[in-house]
C-alpha cells in the first residue's frame, strides 16, 4: 500500500531557561497547536504543553520526555504511537497531608473526568531530596541526593503494570525565585530539577515519564495567594494540581521502540522549531548531523546564548516570531523553498 509522506515537525523549548514563550506553564501550547494545524504530527515534550491541570495539546502532538527525545534525535529509538498507556504514579515521601490530598484528588479527577487509567499510586520509602540550582546565567538545573529511592519505587510501579510513569517529587526552591517567576522576572525554578528527574527515570527504564512538582502546604498557600500573577503563570495560581497535565500527556504518550517497528523515526522529521538562543541541546545538534532544517524563533528569548551564529550552524532558517514559523512550515509542507517567498531573490551564477 502506498503511504503518503507525512509532514513531521519537532517543537522544542528547553526547561528552566526563562523562555518568553514556553517558559511558564503550558504557554507554548497555542504555538504548538498552530504548528500541529500545519503538520501531520508534532513531536514535543512536557515543558511545552504542561499547563498544571490543563494539557490542551492537539491529538497529533506526540508527548515525548526530554531524555527520550534526545535518544530519538540520536537515532537510538523510534516512537510507537498507542491508544493509551497504563500509568503508575510515584510520590515523594515527607510532605504534609495537604500535598498528598491535592495529588490524590488530581489523580481521581483525571480518572473520573478524563478516563485516564492509573494502576498504582506509590510513595517512596524515604525522601528523594531534590533541589533546584540556579546557574550563573540565571537558568535553573537540578540536583538529587537519593535517586536510588526513586528508581526502586518506579520499579515497583512497573511490576504493578505501569507502562508510563508520572513522578511527583518535592523540589526545594527559594521562595524569592518563585516570586520573581510569578512576576515574569525569572525562570521557572522547578523546571531544571523536573527535567533531571524525568531524564533519570526515562534513562533507567526507557518508558514514557514526566514530572509534576509535589508541593508542601506552604507552597500551595503561596501559589494560590500570590495575587494576580504574570498571565503565563496563571494556571498555577488558580490551583497547583500539576499532575493533571502529566497524566493527560502520558495517557497517549508514544512508547520507545527499536529495530524498525516504530511509527516515527528521526529520518521522518522535516523540521525542528526552537528558540533562537537554544541551539546547544541534543535536538539542534542532532538536526545538524542529520541535515534536518532548524527554524530558530527570535521572539522567543531565553537566558541562553547558544545562537546559530556563535555555534556556526548551517541549514537554519531564522523566524522573527511564530507567525513567520507558520508561513515557513506551510511552504515547506507544500514543497516550496521558504526563501523563494522573500525578496530580493538570490542570484545564481554559472561557475
Amino acid at each position, binding site marked *: 500500500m502506498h503511504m503518503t509522506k507525512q509532514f513531521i515537525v519537532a517543537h522544542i523549548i528547553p526547561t528552566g531557561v526563562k523562555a518568553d514563550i514556553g517558559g511558564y506553564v503550558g504557554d507554548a501550547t497555542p504555538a504548538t497547536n498552530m504548528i500541529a494545524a500545519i503538520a501531520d504530527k508534532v513531536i514535543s515534550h512536557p515543558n511545552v504543553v504542561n499547563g498544571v491541570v490543563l494539557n490542551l495539546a492537539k491529538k497529533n502532538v506526540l508527548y515525548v520526555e*526530554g531524555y527520550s527525545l534526545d535518544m530519538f534525535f540520536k537515532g537510538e529509538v523510534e516512537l510507537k504511537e498507542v491508544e493509551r498507556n497504563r500509568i503508575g504514579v510515584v510520590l515523594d515521601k515527607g510532605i504534609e497531608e495537604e500535598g498528598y490530598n491535592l495529588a490524590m484528588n488530581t489523580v481521581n479527577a483525571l480518572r473520573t473526568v478524563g478516563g485516564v487509567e492509573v494502576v498504582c499510586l506509590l510513595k517512596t520509602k524515604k525522601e528523594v531530596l531534590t533541589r533546584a540550582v540556579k*546557574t550563573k546565567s540565571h537558568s535553573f*538545573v537540578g*540536583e538529587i541526593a537519593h535517586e536510588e529511592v526513586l528508581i526502586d519505587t518506579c520499579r515497583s510501579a512497573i511490576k504493578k503494570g505501569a507502562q508510563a510513569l508520572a513522578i511527583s517529587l518535592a523540589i526545594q526552591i527559594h521562595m524569592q525565585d518563585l516570586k520573581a517567576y510569578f512576576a515574569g522576572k525569572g525562570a521557572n525554578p522547578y523546571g531544571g530539577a523536573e527535567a533531571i528527574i524525568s531524564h533519570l527515570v526515562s534513562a533507567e527504564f526507557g518508558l514514557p515519564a514526566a514530572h509534576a512538582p509535589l508541593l508542601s502546604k506552604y507552597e500551595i498557600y503561596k501559589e494560590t495567594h500570590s495575587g494576580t500573577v504574570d498571565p503565563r503563570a496563571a494556571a498555577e495560581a488558580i490551583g497547583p494540581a500539576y499532575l493533571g497535565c502529566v497524566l493527560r500527556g502520558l495517557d497517549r504518550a508514544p512508547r520507545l521502540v527499536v529495530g524498525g517497528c516504530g511509527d516515527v523515526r528521526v529520518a521522518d522529521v522535516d523540521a525542528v522549531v526552537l528558540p533562537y538562543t537554544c541551539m*546547544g541541546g541534543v535536538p539542534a545538534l542532532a538536526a545538524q548531523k542529520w541535515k534536518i532544517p532548524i527554524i530558530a524563533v527570535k521572539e522567543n528569548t531565553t537566558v541562553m546564548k547558544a545562537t546559530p551564529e556563535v555555534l556556526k550552524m*548551517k541549514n537554519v532558517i531564522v523566524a522573527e516570531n511564530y507567525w513567520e514559523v507558520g508561513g515557513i512550515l506551510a511552504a515547506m509542507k507544500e514543497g516550496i523553498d521558504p526563501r523563494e517567498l522573500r525578496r530580493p531573490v538570490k542570484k545564481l551564477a554559472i561557475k
Partner: protein
Amino acid sequence: MIVSKRITIRRDKVKSEQLLEHIQKHFKDTIDGDVLRFAIIGTNGATLDVDISVRVEDSAQKAKKRGGRRAHD
C-alpha cells in the same frame, strides 16, 4: 546522586555536523558518571560553555555495590 555543573569544552574547529559526537566523546573521556542532560549555553572564544547534569555514585552507593559497610552502619 545527581549533580549539576558548568564545564568548558574546546571546540577544536569541529563542524556543526560533528559537534554532538565531539561533545559526547569529551564526556566519555573526561566525566566520571552518566551525563543525563546537557546544553551548550554559549561560547567563550574557542571553547563551549556547557551545563551538565551527571549521575555519579557517592561513597555510600559504591560501598553498597561492593558489599561493604559504612562506618556508622
